[in-house]
Every structure is written in structure tokens, then in C-alpha cells.
């Protein structure tokens, strides 16, 4: 089985006013294709940084990250962006939708950026809007939707170009328990249908348990944890 994500000896630190803070210390991890993996850890443990490095939003300086066998190490910003546009879908805690674009245009954005013809793109958008249960809300603007609805739009946008990898950063963090449950169910179903891999950063035990496996980021190191034993973990 190939790995959607393969991280080798990844080290990352921030330097601020003469002091250097080590965030990731020789991290080794993998996310197999078609699998979903939860990444847990305390606030400030470096989960978002790891996600940013995996997605190519920040350049890898030490160690290596490969997406579907393609190493990011020697890619420049342009090449990383191209790779992200083709192979990665992003879901954020704060939804990060463009409020001056309609729901339809928000979802169509990755396709438009890849140069897909608008007819084809909007047909695909319609499919996904049906799939996320927002059919008929295409012309609305994101800031008129509830939090749960906005996250559904974000899921549709993340999946619209059928990426091999979904990166989800606290996708239920801004939602109530019920909405969160619904959104996660939807996300899992759609990711499975598409056969994509998913790396899911979460603080929720329930969400983490729903993943195929879980990784704990602690003191800059990643270790595999048993999802059944999560309640006992100090990571919460």
C-alpha cells in the first residue's frame, strides 16, 4: 500500500527574538492511502505546524515530507502550490470561506484554479452540494449560513477536485456536538466514497476514535496511540 503522506525526520523550529523554539523534533509518520488518521496533542504542541508543512504552506527545512510519493523537499513555492491544488483538500476550524463569493463559487474555486471549464465545474459543484445536503443554497453567501452549513460548504470545496489527501484542522472545533457529529459523519462518508486519505487534527475523542488510527504529537515527537485507549491519554 502506498502512503498518501510520508514524513521522515521532520524537524521544525521557530526563532523569535534570539530564542529558538523547537516545534517538531525528527518526526516520523505515515498516512496510508485511503486511510483516515487522527492527529492529537495539546494546544501549542505543533499540530497545525505539521499540517502546514505537510500541505506545503510552509517549506520543509529539515527532514522530508512526501505526498503520494512526491517529495516536497526540493519543490519551490510554485510547485508546492500546484501539488496542493491537485492533490490536497483543506478543511479548517474557522471554515475560511470567501464571504464575498457565493457558496457555489466558493466550492468551484479549486476547479476554477485548475482551469476546469465552468460548465463541468458547476456540474460537479451541484453534485457535491447535493452530497453535503445544501442543494438549493448555491447562490447564498457563506456568512448567511449556520456554522454547520458553512463547514459543509468547506467540505464540498475540499473534495470538489477529488484530491488524494484531505487535511482537516479541527473541523468540528467551532460546532456544537450535534452539528459536529453530523459534519464528521458526512466527511467520513465522502472521503471513503472518494477513496482519499485524511489527516485529521482534533481535540475530540469522539472524532479521533472515528479515524482508522491515531497519532499523538507530544514534545515535538509523534507516536502511534491506540484509539481505544484515548481516554487515558494525557493529550487531551
Amino acid at each position: 500500500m502506498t502512503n498518501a503522506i510520508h514524513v521522515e525526520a521532520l524537524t521544525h523550529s521557530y526563532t523569535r527574538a534570539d530564542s529558538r523554539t523547537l516545534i517538531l523534533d525528527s518526526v516520523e509518520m505515515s498516512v496510508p492511502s485511503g486511510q483516515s488518521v487522527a492527529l492529537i496533542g495539546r494546544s501549542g504542541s505543533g499540530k497545525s505546524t505539521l499540517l502546514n508543512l505537510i500541505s506545503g504552506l510552509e517549506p520543509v527545512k529539515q527532514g522530508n515530507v512526501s505526498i503520494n510519493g512526491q517529495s516536497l523537499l526540493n519543490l519551490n513555492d510554485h510547485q508546492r502550490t500546484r501539488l496542493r491544488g491537485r492533490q490536497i483538500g483543506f478543511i479548517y476550524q474557522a471554515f475560511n470561506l470567501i464571504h464575498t463569493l457565493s457558496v457555489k463559487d466558493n466550492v468551484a474555486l479549486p476547479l476554477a484554479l485548475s482551469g476546469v471549464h465552468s460548465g463541468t465545474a458547476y456540474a460537479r459543484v451541484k453534485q457535491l452540494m447535493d452530497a453535503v445536503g445544501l442543494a438549493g443554497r448555491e447562490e447564498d453567501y457563506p456568512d448567511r449560513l449556520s456554522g454547520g452549513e458553512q463547514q459543509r460548504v468547506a467540505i464540498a470545496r475540499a473534495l470538489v477536485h477529488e484530491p488524494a489527501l484531505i487535511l482537516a484542522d479541527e473541523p468540528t472545533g467551532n460546532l456544537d456536538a450535534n452539528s459536529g457529529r453530523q459534519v464528521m459523519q458526512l466527511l467520513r462518508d465522502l472521503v471513503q466514497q472518494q477513496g482519499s486519505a485524511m489527516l485529521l487534527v482534533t481535540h475530540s475523542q469522539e472524532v479521533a476514535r472515528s479515524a482508522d488510527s491515531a497519532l499523538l504529537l507530544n514534545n515535538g515527537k509523534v507516536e502511534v496511540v491506540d484509539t481505544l485507549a484515548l481516554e487515558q491519554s494525557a493529550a487531551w
Partner: protein
Amino acid sequence: MLAHILARSSWRFYRQHPAQLLLSIIGIVLGVGVVCAVLITNNSSQRAFALSTEALYGNTTHELIGANGVDQQFYVELRNRFTSINMAPVIVGNIAINDEVYSLLGLDPFAELAFNRASNSPFASATTSQQQAESNGSSLTDLLRTDALLISEKSARDKQLSVGQMITLDVAGQKHSAYLAATYQSDNPVAATGLLLGDIAFVQKLLQRGDKISRIDLILDDEQELALQEYLPQTLQLKQAGSRTDTMRAMTRGFHINLTAMSLLALLVGIFLIHNTMTFAVVQRRELFAIMRITGITSRTLMKNILIEAVAISSIASMIGIALGYFLSSALVKLTTRTINDLYFVLHVQEVWFSPWLIALGLALGIGSSVIAASIAAIDAASTNPVQARQRSLIEERSQRLLPLLAMIGVVIMAAGALLSVLPLRSLVAGFIAMMLIILGFGLLIPWLVLHITRSLKPLIDKLGISLSLAAGGIYRNISRTGLAIAALSIAVSATFGVDVMIGSFRSSVDNWLKATLQSDIYITAPAAASTQTASMLSPDSYSRATGTLGVASVSSGRTLQVSTSVGDISMLVIKPHSSDGGGFELLETDGDSPWQLWSADQSLMISEPLATKHKLQAGGSIDVFTQNKGFTSFNIAAVFRDYGSSQGKLLMARDVFDLYWQAPGISSLGIVLNNSVEVELVIDQLRATLASSERPLSIQSNTAIHEQSLIVFDRTFEVTRVLRWLTVGVAFVGIFSALLALHLERAKEFAILRASGATRQTVLMIVMAQTFIMGLLAGTLALPLGWMMSEVLIKVINLRSFGWSMQSMLPVDAIGETLVLAVASAMLAGIYPAYKLSRTGIAEQLRDD
């Protein structure tokens, strides 16, 4: 305490956004700077007039003038009869030293004591004691030399002239020597820079005035005035002193009002941009303000805080603007003085006069316009429901709903402006108000037009790729921001287009007029020391010598002089034309079918269009002219002719008619028509040789050369307008730059989402640049109709009212292209930095949870 907390919050915001603070300041600085520069320039010119009066007239209350000077014998008679009246003979003229023109004042040192002109003049001291005169570096003997002249200490120092040296004077092209007998000190800059004093007898000889003097200056009380009036013959006129300066001031009024209008245009653009920057500063903190409102801060307190912020920023910026205005004005004063010298009269003073009220006015303009601009944004921010403040789409939706109403108000304002411009008023101010209303109305209409244009073009643009599609969409989806930026740029660019069309139309009219008027192949004149002064005379035999030259078909003669009329002092051209139909004069209005026949008859003349327009005179009417032989005489107006040569108006009189009323046989110019197939240059050489025997150096030029020179003067006249126009573009550029920077930085998160979704840096660059390109193109395109409307008001209302010139408007194709290029280039240039900045923004930072 609350005020302090809010002030600290504002301070922190601007510390985090220094570029925005800087741009707000620059916008106000430029707006206030340009207006202050023009106000200071106008103030300096007005002050120069006042000082000229003081220097040339001193304590004089009245002046006695004749149609062709005053006989010096009459002065002697007057002095003997009215022994108790202070009076002094004066001769005024212009001479040049090393090509620099000076006013030359010929005075009688013994009559001068009471007049105190050009204060501290050694003339005054010479009459009191020799010792005092010596302290000025000269002896009384030197001062009484027949070729003595006095110059100010400052001029002597500047020109490196020393007392006791002989200097060469250029008097109407002839060289003369004079002895520099002394220097004098004067606090009056006119006297200190551009004035030479001499004994009246010497000056009379220098200027070849025969037994004539220019005027008699008098210090009169009411009783003496009455007594004198009874004694005076009708061929002499008693006037209030300085009335000629008032005429000069009136002449240049239109010119100065035009300058002020251009500066107000810069301020109007400045207000748009101040509003822009203040709006962005408020909009960026919308959510912060919402939180403040939620914590219990009232909308009134919030509004007060925003307005205090506007006052604080604009106070600092206005002070800098006033300082900038002061520096700019020194360049503008030079340009305007040159134009006044080209077109009106010799004005020596180029000093900048600054008065404290200009500081008050500059502050009032800067702070006032900033507060007005900020108050709109403040009301909006304070009145927005705190819950809705985060909903950006709601804000845009509300803006879009407001646009039709704003557009309608704009159309009504424009209609009011158009109506005001066509009303038969004579007020120049009303003309400017009309133009400002049209600009303001169109400015309000622009966002609505932009919304509809971009929306309707969207399907077409979508086919051109994602960058253009997102760029165009970004314009109408953010219309509350983009509409304002486009309006500001459009107004600024329209001002340049409008002024271009006006200058182009004017130039073309002048060009056609010159082609029609310059009927002779060659013109001969005796050069005057200053271009606008009454011309010097040619030798009496010049006419016959020219007629006898080989290749000459016919010769016309002319003479220019300044005459007093019932509507003020006016230049009069006396001609003996080549043909009986006048030739070359375009008659706009005539009294009957044979105006030229009527013109050559007794008591008739023609008047130029500006004179007719300004004083509501028409063909068939009459005008009183003060003649040498019969005093004020009424002349019938045979026709009104087109003339761009003088904005104060001109009279045209037949030589035969002139000779009936003046005893002034001289001519100042000759026009020569050549036989066919004769080489112009060849005849010019022959004429030079033929006329060289007469003492005076002559200016002999082909009509092509005069045509070219006239257009050079024309272009120079509009140099100051061009400078102001570019300053307006500068103001607009800062406006569009700050608007784009604020707009795009506000959308930084949006672009980060795009980047995270797969948009490369180049794509972001492309989107931003494409958006600025479309904004520039829209601004340029919308500037064309507005600019055209402005040019129509400038040509048909403002120019007509200020100068009296009518002209055909022309739409130069190259100006259309230039306007579009200017708008697009300004927008794109202004978009480079925001585009670069956005493409480099850290995606992860922007997408971090709030």
C-alpha cells in the same frame, strides 16, 4: 478614562498599519498643499500689485493723464497756478539691462519730497542734505549728472553693479549709456528689484518722449480736486491714483480664478481620497468596533472617537500640507509671473508672500474635509448593528442597494450643474460651482455604473480565464471599496482629459485665428523692451522704404497704444490695412452689411470679442474713447471681431479716423505682402539692408515665425495649468494607491484561501494586477464623458466668462488614448506593491483561527 482607552486603541491600530497612516497623511498633505500653493501664489500676485502701486505712486492720490501723454508745458502752468497743491511729473517706461527688463521711473527730485514712493530713495535725501546723500555712497554732484540713474542696493548687489560705473541700457532695441550715480534702499520688493530711477529730463530723452510726460501725480483733498477739475481741459483726465493697477488686477482676475479652480479640483480629488483612506481605516476595525459596542460603548462615543482621530491625523497632515504649499508656491509664482508678463504687463516681483490667515485657511480646508469624509464612515460604523458587523456580504449587499439611490442623487446634482452652466449668468464663480456639481454628481454615479458594467461583462470575462474572472468579480463584489477608488481616479483623470480638450480646442482656435489674421508675409516692428508694453515707433520713412523694396506688393501699417475708454483702459490697434475689407479679421457681429466701409468712416471703430462679452457691448452700439484732440468722444461700434491676442479686449481703429483725433503720426509696425513667387527670406534680407540706415534695430519676421512664436507663448501660458494638472494626478495616484493597498490588504485572508486552494503566487499577482487593470480601464473610460463635460463647461462657460473668448470644442483622439493609458498605468503602478505583498503573505498566518 474611556477616551484614553479608545485613543490608545486607535494609536495601536495605526502603529500596526503604519502604511495606512502614512497614506492618509500623504493624501491630505497633497490636497492641502496644492490648494495652499495656489492660494499663496494668488496672494503673492495680489500683493505684488499693491506693492507696485506703492512703489510707483507713493502718497499720490490722483493722477492726471492725457490720451497721448501730457505736455510738460501744461505741468509748468499747473504748478504756477496751483502753488499749494503737491504735484510731480512722472515718466514711466521699460528698459532692459542685459536682457532683464526694469521699470524706469523719470521723476523731478525737487517735486518728489511729498510723494515718498520707493521709500528711502536718495532723491528724497538729496533734497535734504548732501551729507545724507553721501552716506548712500554718492555725492550730490553725481546725482545731478544729466545721465544719472539710481538702482536699488539689492539689484546692484544681485547684478554686480557698482556706483560710479557706466551701464548700457536697451531702450526699444537701441543702446544707451547711463551713469549709475547711487543706490537706494527700499523695503518694498518692487522698488528693491525691478525699478530704476532717473531725473525726468534724462528719462524723457532716453524714452524719446519729446516734450511729453506720462502723467502728473497729485496729492489732493476734495476741495483741490474740484478746483482742478474746473480748470482742466477736456483733453486731460483726472483719475484716482492706482486705478490703472486696479485695471491690471481685474485683467488677471480670470487667470487667478482659473488657478484657484484647478487647485480646488485637486482638493476635491483629495477629499475623495481622504474619504477613501478614512473609510478603510474605519472599515478595517468594523469588527473591533462591534466588540466595543457589545461591551457597552455607545455609537455616539464611537463616532466621536473616529472624528477625533480624523482631526488629529488631518491637523498634522494639514500643517505639512501648508509647508508643502509654501514650497510649491515659489515655483508657481515664477510661472504665473512669466504668464502675467507674457500676457498682461511687466510684474517684477517673484517673492512668495505668506500670511497667517493662509495657515488658518489651510487647516480649515484639511481638517474640515477630513472630518466630513470621516464622518460618513463614522456614521456608518457607529450605526451598524454589532451582530451584523462581521457579515461582509451584508455590508456589500447594503452598499449595492444604496447605489441606485446615490446614482439618482448624482444625476440630479449633475442636472443642477448643467442647468447652472447654461443659465445666462456672467458669474465665474457660478461657472465653477456648475463644474463642481457636475463632477460631484458624476462621482456619485460612478460606483453604480461600475457595478452594472462589471456584472454585465462578467460572462464575457469568465471566458478569459480564472484570473480575469476573479478580478472582475472582485470589483463588483467589493463595490463599497472599489467603487470609491475608481471614482477618485476617474475624477482625477477626467480633470486632465477635460483640461487637455480645453487646451487643445483653445490651441486649435488660436492656430486657425493666427492663420487667418497673419495676412502679411512679413512683419516689421521696432522691438519694445517688454513684450506687453505699447510698441516703440518705427522711423517715419520706414513705410516708404518698405514700399519701394523689390518684390513687395503692398504694405500695411499699424500702431498700438493704450487708451482710456468708458469701460477702462484698453489697448487700441490703429491700422491702415492692405485692402478695404480689412483682410484677416473674422467678424463675429456687424452693424449693417458693409462694416469695413462703416469702420473707415468718422467716429467708428471695431471691438474685439472679449471686450464685447465682458462689457455687454455689441455692433451698432457705442463706446466712449478719450482722444487727444477732443477728450472723451463717442465712437460707433461697426463690428465685433475675433481676437485671442488679449483677454482684456482691444479696439481697432482706421488710421484715417485716428489721425482726426490724435496728433501722433508714428507707426509701430508694418505688414508686407509679397508678389507671387518671391522668396520670403530674400525679401527679409533686402528689407534689413534697406531699413538698416535708419538708427533703430528692427524685428523683421516672416508670418510663419510669428505664428510659431505665438504658439510658444500660448504653450507657456498653460504651463502652470499643466503643472497643477499633474499635481492633481499625483493626488489621485496616492488615492488609488492607498485605496488598492487597503482594499487588497483587507482581502489578505481571501487571497490566502485562494493560495491554500491551489492558486500560485503568479496567479495571485495576475488576479490583483488584472483587477487594477480593469479598475484603471473603467476609471479611464468613465473619465472620458466626465472630462468632455468638464471641457464643455471650461470652454463655453468659464473661458468665455473669464476671458471673453469663444471657441470651437475639439475632441483630440490622442487625448482619449492618453487618458486611458494614464488611468490604466496609474492603477497598475499603484497595484504593484499590494499585488507583491499579497502574493508573499504567509498563508498559514492568515488562515489561523481568529
